[in-house]
């Protein structure tokens, strides 16, 4: 559980840094809120940057649009994917 919490903090820090969300702190990001449209209101370019984070830092390749939608839904869904990926490898 502690690893999951650490991973969520790490992901929030990466999102703020890589997406240049300078007005935000990790406390401002709701772990379970949708990242797109609602919540952080990210756009399609941000989605591509999140995909790069997952591939570059965690070795995860998103294979389809549907899979991408599910994984990039929230910080929590991203963290869960990373955890399941790590346990498989």
């Amino acid at each position, binding site marked *: 559980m502690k690893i999951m919490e650490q991973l969520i903090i790490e992901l929030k820090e990466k999102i703020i840094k*890589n*997406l*240049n*969300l*300078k*007005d935000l702190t990790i406390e401002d990001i709701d772990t379970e809120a949708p990242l797109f449209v609602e919540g952080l209101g990210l756009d399609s*370019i*941000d989605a*591509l*940057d999140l995909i*790069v984070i997952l*591939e*570059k830092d965690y070795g995860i390749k998103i294979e389809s649009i549907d899979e991408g939608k599910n994984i990039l839904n929230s910080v929590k869904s991203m963290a869960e994917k990373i955890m399941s990926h790590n346990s498989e490898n």
Partner: protein
Amino acid sequence: MITAYSIIKNNVSIVNGKPFLADNNTETFSKFVEQLYKKLNIHYPKFYKMDNLTKLGFINSELLLQNKNINSYYSEDEIGLVFANKSSSLDTDLKFYSTIENRNQYFPSPSVFVYTLPNIMLGEICIRNRFKGENAFFIMEKFDSEFILEYSRLLLDTNRTECCIAGWVELLPDNFESLFFLLEKKKYNNNLKTLELKNIIRQYEDYGAINH
């Protein structure tokens, strides 16, 4: 006629001849432009996602247009933009190249890639202000104010453009400078004050060396 101008150069910003912000202690473009962002009291989170060339053009357009309320005089398709520079988007091109030059660390950055054209800056300014008029971005060896203004006047004389934001916006890692003009037809506002180009250029040159 030129009705307003704004300059950003050598960590100094000037609007219609009056200093707006000067900071000789700021070492980087990013810090200086963020000071301008705060002093202009802008709340536009997308600013932080822009590349440096776009930040420079965006902030100078905000300087130029502050308190002008041009959207109340002109419809969105009557406002055009004509910009030019020497180095195109080279600063960002090099940043993007750094994400793909190593075959073993090949992670092209989407957020950097979208700014690898200088006219993206025009789009960001149009989005911010809801402008939908004519626009053009020229690459030229030296700052040719006569060409830029002549092209702008052509737009004003020959089609729906009634107001034009025009100028020079150049940025490299070790240099940034921008001069924007506001050109308006005397259609709606009889109190427009005309500014002399030669006086503006002289003031621009006074703030450091320029390829002019």
